[in-house]
């Protein structure tokens, strides 16, 4: 079989990234949009770790750890905002969250 190279991992990461983008742009439920953002972040992480292996340095892995930390912080704050909004408007539908226009 073809030995698995960095390129294979990049293709998988690109596929996950595109799936995440489709989820962000298409879904109606805000929680699922946030989950698609997590998919995008994971794709980026996979890219970083694959390149770290390609060059033999650990910078990619350290950056990946920082991205995981960042994703945790962002998920917490994003879900907090969502809960605050849900308390006011009683909906989690992106079509109905359009307060800034008449």
């Amino acid at each position, binding site marked *: 079989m073809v030995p698995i190279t*960095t390129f294979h991992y990049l293709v998988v990461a690109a596929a996950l990234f595109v799936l995440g983008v489709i989820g962000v742009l298409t879904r109606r439920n805000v929680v699922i949009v946030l989950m698609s953002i997590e998919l995008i972040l994971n794709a980026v992480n996979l890219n970083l770790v694959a390149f770290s292996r390609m060059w033999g340095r650990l910078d990619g892995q350290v950056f990946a750890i920082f991205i995981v930390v960042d994703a945790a912080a962002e998920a917490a704050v994003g879900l907090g905002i969502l809960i605050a909004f849900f308390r006011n408007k009683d909906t989690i539908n992106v079509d109905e969250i359009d307060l800034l226009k008449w």
Partner: protein
Amino acid sequence: MNPGLHQALIAVYTTNTGPGMEPVATPFFFYLLSGLAIAGGFLVITRRNPVHCALALIVTLIAVANLYLMLYAPFVAAVQIIVYAGGIMVLFLFVIMLVSIERASRDRRFNRFWPVGLATACGLLALFVSAFVKGRALFPDRMIAIPEGSNTQQVASMLYGEAGRMGQYTFAFEIASLLLLVAILGAVIMTKKKI
């Protein structure tokens, strides 16, 4: 038993290839894990019930953590499982249970502008495909072996060491802890009923 076969079996089953050893059945595990990850990602964006989407995302996260293991990054894999799959996904499931009213799962799945979104994503996909086809030569086929035994120590020396090549990321580490503090405060204040 045939002594030659006996010796061969012993040789096969007791080979000690030492630390940082050869991985086993790499293409099989790569295709299995990446198939699981992509299938999980597809289920995340297409299921109607948000709890199903969360479970599919957990499958994706664990598959990606195993891909990190295959890339000789055990520490990042452990951090991914502890933080992402064990922490963030529990948070997501909590919030789904708090906000998921019954009618949400009977709503339509995709929002009003889904054709535009899909077209944009297809454009992005075309961009990736052209980048990979044209730039195939940019990604050399070599994979440098990083010894697995001291991965955690090396990551730690990059995060905690003194200035210079070791300890390049110490400052970023401190800033990340500040970021987490701000995120904790933000999440608590956002969800209080009266500030």
